[in-house]
């Protein structure tokens, strides 16, 4: 079971675990001792009329009861403590691993899935370690203890009494095997239901516009029905197992009563012993009933562990090498040497035979149709993906040899959709340099044409953005993102020039901000606007993953190739 692979998680807490086991042993011993008190009370105290023994028994029961209460409270805290810490460590580990996994992993991963691994799956493991492991240990202690005491009292009666326990254990394990698969099914059906709902709500405008409500209701009903069926299947099994366990426990008592009673009548057993015997059998039976739940929890935890390990086992393909070159301040020279790139699961290579050399401080405009490889090309510079063939060099150093933070901190990135975090505007601008001074932050915001509108908010730079703060318009977000990149003072800048949803005036503001940003750095622009393209020192025309033309605006127009064609279309449009 995958849960065993999580040994590393409990290693730091071996002392606490040992202590907890010791405590548990004490608790079990106490509960095993209780029936003896009752036996002595009946056989010696009551039968012989010893009133001193009665007081003694009552005091003993009280004292041991108090001790049991104290130990079980301690036990509960201890196991929660261990489980809490294990869960904490595991969640940290998952988080750190996830945030270091490469883009190619995140391209295919679903956010919801990853979150549920960090939360639900860790919780399942945590619950198991906190509750069920303890119960399991107690169960073993109890079974061994109770059976040996019973055997020492009366072998025959023991053997008769524990007969129903065997089918019970068998049934429990069999149930456990089946129920894990069933629960897995239930979880999946609920996941489907939730996905269907999520999609319907996200696409509500389309659904309404096409008057597809009834169709959507039918589809939802399918999932709703499937979930219903999956649940009913689980419960139908449970409905058999639950009363059967209960029944078998009762059979134990009846067997003890019948055979033990006959022994008492024959004088082979005392009444007190019989009562104690019954108590021991019940002691065995109760945990055996719990076994059903335990097996259940173990299955759930194992499934959770498996899912968590799946993430941890995914190698972070892109990481600094062992002897990484710590890049000094860059001049900003970028070279692609025979570069090819093929994403996993893709049929065709996204880049092939790319050779390009960019001198420091040059402005490079990349143009070409959607899917021609512009984004793929620039993503190679901060090493978001690794090339399939060839080399990408920055200041003559292969990016695969460079220390990643030292490379990425010198590259600024402004994407088409500017993602901000729910934090203050100030913290968002300082995202790449949390230690930046207020002056530096204001200066960056000013240069990005963002200072004015930020001060327009009642709380200025402390204004919260994101889900729980103010909603910034697309143009405002973009300018904050530009300020964020500016503050990094990157040597190499990558811009996705497609501005969406902004009016003409905002567009001009952003353009000014970008011009500011591009000055004195090596800049790669995925360009759509002729004005940007025209100014570029180097225009790179891409088609189907290859560079088909390079040159300046004048050169390329003179050549009369693809660039001229695009240029003419745009002018006439």
């Amino acid at each position, binding site marked *: 079971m995958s849960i065993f692979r999580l040994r590393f998680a409990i290693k730091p807490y071996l002392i606490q675990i040992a202590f907890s086991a010791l405590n548990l042993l004490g608790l079990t011993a106490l509960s095993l001792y209780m029936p003896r008190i009752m036996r002595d009370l009946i056989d010696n105290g009551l039968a012989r009329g010893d009133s001193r023994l009665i007081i003694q028994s009552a005091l003993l029961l009280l004292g041991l009861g108090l001790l049991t209460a104290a130990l079980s409270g301690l036990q509960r805290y201890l196991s929660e403590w261990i489980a809490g810490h294990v869960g904490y460590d595991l969640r940290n580990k998952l988080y750190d691993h996830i945030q270091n996994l490469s883009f190619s992993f995140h391209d295919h991963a679903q956010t919801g899935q990853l979150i549920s691994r960090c939360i639900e799956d860790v919780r399942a493991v945590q619950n198991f370690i906190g509750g069920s492991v303890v119960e399991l240990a107690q169960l073993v202690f109890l079974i061994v203890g109770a059976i040996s005491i019973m055997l020492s009292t009366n072998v025959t009666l023991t053997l008769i009494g524990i007969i129903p326990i065997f089918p019970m254990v068998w049934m429990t394990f069999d149930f456990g095997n089946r129920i894990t698969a069933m629960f897995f099914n239930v979880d999946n059906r609920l996941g489907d239901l939730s996905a269907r709902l999520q999609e319907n709500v996200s696409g509500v405008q389309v659904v309404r516009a096409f008057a597809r409500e009834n169709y959507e209701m039918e589809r939802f009903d399918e999932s709703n029905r499937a979930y219903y069926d999956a649940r009913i299947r689980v419960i139908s099994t449970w409905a058999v197992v639950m009363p059967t366990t209960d029944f078998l426990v009762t059979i134990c008592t009846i067997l003890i009563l019948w055979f033990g009673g006959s022994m008492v009548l024959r004088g082979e057993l005392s009444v007190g012993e019989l009562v104690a015997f019954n108590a021991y059998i019940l002691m065995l039976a109760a945990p055996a009933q719990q076994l059903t739940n335990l097996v259940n929890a173990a299955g759930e935890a194992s499934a959770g562990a498996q899912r968590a390990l799946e993430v941890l086992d995914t190698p972070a393909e892109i990481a600094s090498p062992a002897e990484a070159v710590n890049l000094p301040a860059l001049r900003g020279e970028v070279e692609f040497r025979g570069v090819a790139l093929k994403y996993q699961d893709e049929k065709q290579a996204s880049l092939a035979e790319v050779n390009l050399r960019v001198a420091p401080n040059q402005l490079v405009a990349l143009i070409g149709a959607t899917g021609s490889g512009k984004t793929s090309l620039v993503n190679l510079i901060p090493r978001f993906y690794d090339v399939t063939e060839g080399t990408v060099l920055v200041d003559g150093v292969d990016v695969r040899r460079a220390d990643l933070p030292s490379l990425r901190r010198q590259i600024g990135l402004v994407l088409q959709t500017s993602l901000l975090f*729910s934090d203050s505007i100030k913290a968002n601008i300082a995202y790449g340099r949390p230690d930046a001074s207020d002056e530096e932050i204001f200066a960056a915001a000013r240069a990005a044409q963002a200072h004015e509108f930020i001060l327009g908010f009642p709380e200025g730079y402390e204004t919260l953005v994101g889900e729980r703060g103010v909603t910034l318009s697309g143009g405002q977000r973009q300018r904050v993102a530009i300020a964020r990149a500016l503050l990094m003072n990157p040597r190499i800048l990558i811009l996705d020039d497609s501005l969406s949803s902004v009016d003409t005036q905002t567009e001009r503001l952003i353009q000014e901000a970008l011009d500011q940003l591009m000055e004195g750095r090596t800049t790669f622009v995925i360009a759509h606007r002729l004005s940007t393209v025209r100014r570029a020192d180097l225009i790179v025309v891409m088609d189907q993953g290859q560079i088909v033309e390079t040159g300046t605006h004048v050169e390329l127009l003179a050549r009369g190739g693809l660039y001229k064609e695009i240029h003419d279309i745009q002018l006439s449009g």
Partner: protein
Amino acid sequence: MTTITHPAYVTQSEELYDKGLDPQVARRLIKFILPYKWQLLFSAALMLVATASSVIGPYLVKIAIDDGLNAHNPLVLRNTALVYLAAAIIRWGFIYWRVKIMALVGQSVIYDLRKMLFAHLQRLSLGFYSRYSVGRVITRVINDVETLREFITWAVLAIARDLFALVGIIIAMLTLNAKLSLITFITIPLMVLATRIYRRSARLAYRKVRAAISWVNSVLAENINGIRVVQAFSRQTHNYQHFSQVTNRYHLQTLLHAAKVAATFMPIVDILGALATAAVVYIGGTAVLGESITAGVLVGFVLYIDRYFDPIRDLSRRFDTLQSAMAGGERILALLDMEVEVNDSASALELPAIRGDVRFDQLSFHYSDDPTLVLRDISLSVPAGSTVALVGETGAGKTTLVKLLSRFMDPTSGRLLVDGHDLRDITQNSLRRQMGVVLQDPFLFNGTVKENIKFGRLDATDAEVQAAAQAVGAHEFILRLKNGYETSVEEGGVMLSVGQRQLISFARALLADPRILVLDEATSSVDTQTEQIIQKALARLFQGRTSFVIAHRLSTITSADLIVVVEGGSISEQGTHAELLAHQGKYFALYQTGFQE
């Protein structure tokens, strides 16, 4: 351990809110169960018998000891064992049927409830969706209903069973020996007191745990969504520090605090149990010696004490489930109570096949929660088949205008007529079936490209789907995808570019072949070739139908039959491109600054 301060929103979430038994909420929730009242009553009856057969156990042991063993009567011993066996068999059957029936009822109620919620969601106006996030809707329909399911299927019966058992045990104890029973019952007030104290602190403690986990959740969600920015800015170390030392540690702290609370209370029940047992043994034991009770009574009694504390322990635990079920139930009811703003009137007619004449007649509009007029006195006549370009600044009211046309909301005053029918007199479905809407950011469903196009007309054949894709120029790129038309587009269509998503949504609208088309032109710039294809596709889309375009591209605007300039909620100018230029008004000014390059 240092105390960690969490952001304020962590404790403000409505998911954390819980409450006790609210009779009004409970009454309304019970209504959902009413259709199954006979099944419920039947299973309650089954449970009563099953509980009785369980309570009888220790009593049988007592008879066996006193009348069988101590009186040396093997016959009594045998009969007791047989009765016990019979009781066990009956119990098996009764539990089986009870569990099964209750599960069916619980599951059916949940199924009904989800169905009702979903149907309601299909009717709620778009205004609702702008206030209520996707996440919240999902929490309502999935998580809250799940809590309620657990409550109905397990807790309701468990509470009933515990109460039955408690009553049964108390009766049995009183029958066995009144004096010993009273001694045991002394612990009840202590128990009640302890439970009350525990419940208050436990509730607080667990609320903090839930708040902490939702904080962890939101930090995770944000950082995984923004992973590209995180890595681009090399923030991993910093973020890890924050996560492990603040967010995740806060969760650990709340967890440990809750554990402490539980660890303090749980032993109290054990202590009271030990007290009761010791008292019974002492007083009862002395009584046996005085011959006023038998040894069997004493043994039976001690067995009952054990069983007596079980339901009490269980009940105090169930109270938490009850609380969260009530809170969840209330949130579900609040969602069901959300008013449907746009309703078909009782006398609404099916709109027959239309030509596509559209007339806005002195129409004004403001939102129900804000009296500021968004549209003022709009009058506009559009003959069937013409293309109308709506231009104006962001917030001028263009979007509101077309939303009224799709009847996503109703005008505050004035009328909107399609082929002479007031929109309020016809059914929404019959209107929308003849309308097509293309949004600025085209939404694609998780499914294949083909399924997404077919959403426009479910019964379309593959050939028709391809024809539509061909007409808008999407066929070529679709064929280049990994599996052509069968390529899955994944969550929100992330595998496709903006331009490609647009083309697919065009094909979808074309396949629906609406008489009236509403199109919100995308503003994001795409590469030149795609742009050209889109221009052609638009021309094809507008052909032969009335089209309203919120236009950004100059080419779209100039080729329109009618240009309508919207300014501050009213129409300031209308006419053709040439007319409006000659007029030298607002349009002329907009034209000069350039709509889009």
